[in-house]
C-alpha cells in the first residue's frame, strides 16, 4: 500500500506527547499483532457471549425466514402498504440498509486514498458490515416485487419473450448500481483478506483449518512481485470504489427525485442522500465497534483515536444532513408551488408530526453533543448517540417516503399507512440476519486487517523518508 511508505507515527511518542491517542497501542511487534488477531479465530475459546448473541440474532434471522415464507405464500398484502402508500417499510428499510452499507467502502477506499492510516483497524469489519447490510437491503425490493422468483427479469438477457429492461427507469439504474456495489464491495473485501487468509492457513493447528483457509488464500506466499501487483490492484480498486460509493446513493435518491411526487422532486436529494448514508454508516460502525473492542479486548487496535475520528465524521455529515433538511424546507416554500409548499407543513403539523420531530431530535439536535470533547471521549455516550443516529436515519427515510405518498396532489386520494406485524417482523428479521452474519464473520475471519496493521508498526519502516 502506498500508505506503508508514509512515515508512520511513532505510537509511543503520540501516546506520551500531545492529546491525540495513538492508532496502535505501544509495544506491539509483527508477531504479537499477528498472534493477537489470529488467536480470536484460531485458538482463543469462543466467548460464551458469542453463543448467546448468535442464538439471539439467529432467532431473529429465523423470524425473517418465517416472515418471508409467509409473504411468498400470501402475497405482499400482509404488509401495511396500500394505495396511495405503495412504498412504505420495504423501501424505507432498503434505503436504510444501503445507507449503512456506505461506511465500509468509504472507510476502505476514500480514507485509503486520503492516506488516513487510522482506517486500518476498522476497515475489515466495516467492509464486512457493508456486505451484510447490502444483502439485507436487497431482500426488500426483491420481495416487494411480489414474485421474487422472477426477479431475474430485471437483468438484460436474451429471452424467448423478446423483452428488454426499460433503461430510462431509475429503478433499473438502481438494480445496476446496487448489484455493482455488492460485487465490487465483495471483491474489495476478498482481495483485502487474501494475505490474512494465508496467515490463518500457516498458523492453523487443525487440518480442516489449513485446507479451508489454504483454498481461500489461493496459494498466497507474500512474494515481493505479488505484493507489487497486489498494491496496484488494491489502489485501483479504491479509486474505482470511490466514485462508485458516491454513485450508489445518488442513484437510490433518483428513485425518488426523478418522480414528481411533492417532496421527492428535488435536486438536493443526491448529495443529501450520500451524506446521510455516510452518517448512518459511521453510526453503525460505532455501534458495532464499541461492543466488539470491549468483548475481544481490542482496545490496542481500535483506540480512542478511532472512536473520536468516527465521532467527528458523524458530526460533519450530520450537519450536512441538517443543511439538507433546511434546504428541502426552504426550496419547497421558495418554489411557490402549493403542493411542494404543503410538504413541510404536513411534516411539521400533519398526522405523522411526531415522527418528524423525533427525526429532528435524533439526527440534528442530539448529535450536536459531539462538538464537546468530553462527549467524543466517552465510550458509553458515543454508543448511545450512535444508536440514536441509527434510529434517526431510519425515521428520515420513513418521513420522506410515507409522508409524501400518503398526501400528494388530490385530497380525495389521501390515505394513511400503519405497519402490520409482518412489517416489523421483516425489519427486525433483517437486523437479526445482519447480526448473525456478523457473528459468523467475527468467529471465522480476522476482523482486523493483520497485514495492514503490520505496516503501521514503527519496525516496518525500511528507511527514513
Amino acid at each position, binding site marked *: 500500500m502506498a500508505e506503508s511508505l508514509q512515515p508512520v507515527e511513532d505510537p509511543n511518542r503520540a501516546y506520551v506527547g500531545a492529546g491525540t491517542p495513538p492508532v496502535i497501542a505501544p509495544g506491539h511487534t509483527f508477531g504479537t499483532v499477528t498472534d493477537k488477531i489470529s488467536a480470536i479465530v484460531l485458538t482463543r475459546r469462543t466467548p460464551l457471549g458469542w453463543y448467546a448473541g448468535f442464538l439471539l440474532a439467529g432467532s431473529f434471522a429465523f423470524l425473517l425466514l418465517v416472515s418471508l415464507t409467509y409473504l411468498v405464500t400470501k402475497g405482499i398484502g400482509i404488509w401495511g402498504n396500500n394505495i396511495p402508500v405503495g412504498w412504505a417499510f420495504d423501501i424505507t428499510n432498503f434505503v436504510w440498509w444501503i445507507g449503512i452499507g456506505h461506511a465500509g467502502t468509504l472507510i476502505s477506499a476514500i480514507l485509503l486514498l486520503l492516506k488516513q492510516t487510522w482506517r486500518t483497524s476498522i476497515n475489515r469489519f466495516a467492509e464486512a458490515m457493508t456486505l451484510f447490510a447490502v444483502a439485507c437491503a436487497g431482500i426488500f425490493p426483491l420481495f416487494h416485487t411480489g414474485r421474487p422468483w422472477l426477479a431475474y427479469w430485471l437483468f438484460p438477457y436474451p429471452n424467448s419473450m423478446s423483452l428488454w*429492461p*426499460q433503461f430510462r427507469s431509475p429503478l433499473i439504474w438502481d438494480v445496476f448500481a446496487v448489484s455493482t456495489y455488492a460485487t465490487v464491495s465483495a471483491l474489495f473485501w476478498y482481495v483485502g483478506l487474501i494475505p490474512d487468509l494465508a496467515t490463518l492457513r*500457516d498458523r492453523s493447528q487443525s487440518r480442516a483449518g489449513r485446507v479451508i483457509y489454504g483454498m481461500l488464500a489461493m496459494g498466497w506466499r507474500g512474494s515481493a512481485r505479488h*505484493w507489487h501487483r*497486489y498494491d496496484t490492484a488494491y489502489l485501483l480498486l479504491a479509486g474505482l470504489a470511490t466514485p*462508485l460509493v458516491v454513485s450508489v446513493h445518488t442513484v437510490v435518491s433518483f428513485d425518488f427525485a426523478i418522480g414528481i411526487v411533492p417532496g421527492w422532486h428535488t435536486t438536493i436529494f443526491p448529495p443529501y442522500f450520500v451524506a446521510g448514508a455516510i452518517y448512518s454508516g459511521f453510526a453503525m460502525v460505532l455501534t458495532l465497534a464499541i461492543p466488539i473492542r470491549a468483548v475481544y479486548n481490542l482496545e490496542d487496535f481500535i483506540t480512542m483515536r478511532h472512536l473520536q475520528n468516527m465521532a467527528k465524521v458523524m458530526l460533519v455529515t450530520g450537519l450536512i444532513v441538517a443543511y439538507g433538511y433546511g434546504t428541502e424546507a426552504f426550496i419547497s416554500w421558495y418554489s411557490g408551488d402549493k403542493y411542494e409548499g404543503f410538504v413541510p407543513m404536513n411534516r411539521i403539523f400533519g398526522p405523522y408530526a411526531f415522527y418528524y420531530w423525533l427525526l429532528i431530535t435524533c439526527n440534528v439536535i442530539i448529535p450536536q453533543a459531539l462538538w464537546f470533547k468530553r462527549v467524543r471521549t466517552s465510550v458509553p455516550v458515543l454508543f448511545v448517540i450512535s444508536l440514536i443516529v441509527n434510529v434517526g436515519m431510519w425515521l428520515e427515510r420513513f418521513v420522506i417516503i410515507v409522508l409524501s405518498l400518503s398526501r400528494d396532489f388530490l385530497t380525495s386520494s389521501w390515505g394513511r399507512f400503519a405497519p402490520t406485524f409482518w412489517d416489523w417482523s421483516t425489519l427486525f428479521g433483517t437486523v437479526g440476519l445482519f447480526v448473525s452474519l456478523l457473528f459468523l464473520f467475527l468467529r471465522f475471519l480476522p476482523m482486523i486487517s493483520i*497485514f495492514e496493521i503490520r505496516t503501521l508498526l514503527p519496525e516496518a519502516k*525500511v528507511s527514513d523518508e
Partner: protein
Amino acid sequence: MKTPPTVYGLMAEFDDPASVVAAAERAHREGYRCLDAYSPFPIEELTEAMGGEHTRLPLIVLIGGIVGCVGGYALEYWTQVVAYPLNIGGKPFHSWPAFIPVTFECTILVAALSAVLGMLALNGLPQPYHPVFNVPRFALASRNRFFLCVEARDPLFDLERTRRFLETLSPREVSTVAD
C-alpha cells in the same frame, strides 16, 4: 529443461524488513536475476531492490473500464432503439442522459473485475503448490519473518557458492528449497 532439478533454490531468512531489502540489493548487484523475496506485508523498496518491476495491471484495468463503458452504452442503445423501442412519455428512443447511470456502473464493474482477475492472473494465482512451502520455517513468512530466495534456474546459481554468498548477508538461517 534438460534434467528436472531437484533443488528449487536457496532461501535466507531475515528478522526485519531493512535487512531483507539490503540483502536483495546485494544479491541483485552480485548479478543474480532469478530472485524473489517474501514478506508478511508489502515493502515497496523490496521490488525496487530486485531491479524494479513494471506491471501491466493499470493497462488491463483501463481496457476493462473502456469495455464496460462502451458495452454498457451499446447494450442500452441496442435494446432501447433497435431491439425493443418503447415510447415512454414521448422521450426519444435514444435518450442518452438516461443511459449515463447504467453506463457508469458497467464501467466500474468491468474495471473492478479486471483489476482483481488481472492481479490474480498476473500473479499466477490460485496456485495450489509452490516449492517455497517445502521449507518448514516459511510458515513464518506470513507472520514476522522475511525471506530471500535465489532460484536454481539463475545462470549464476551454484549450490555451494550461492550458499556461501547468502551466509555473508548475515541471515538467521539459510535453507535449501526442494522442488
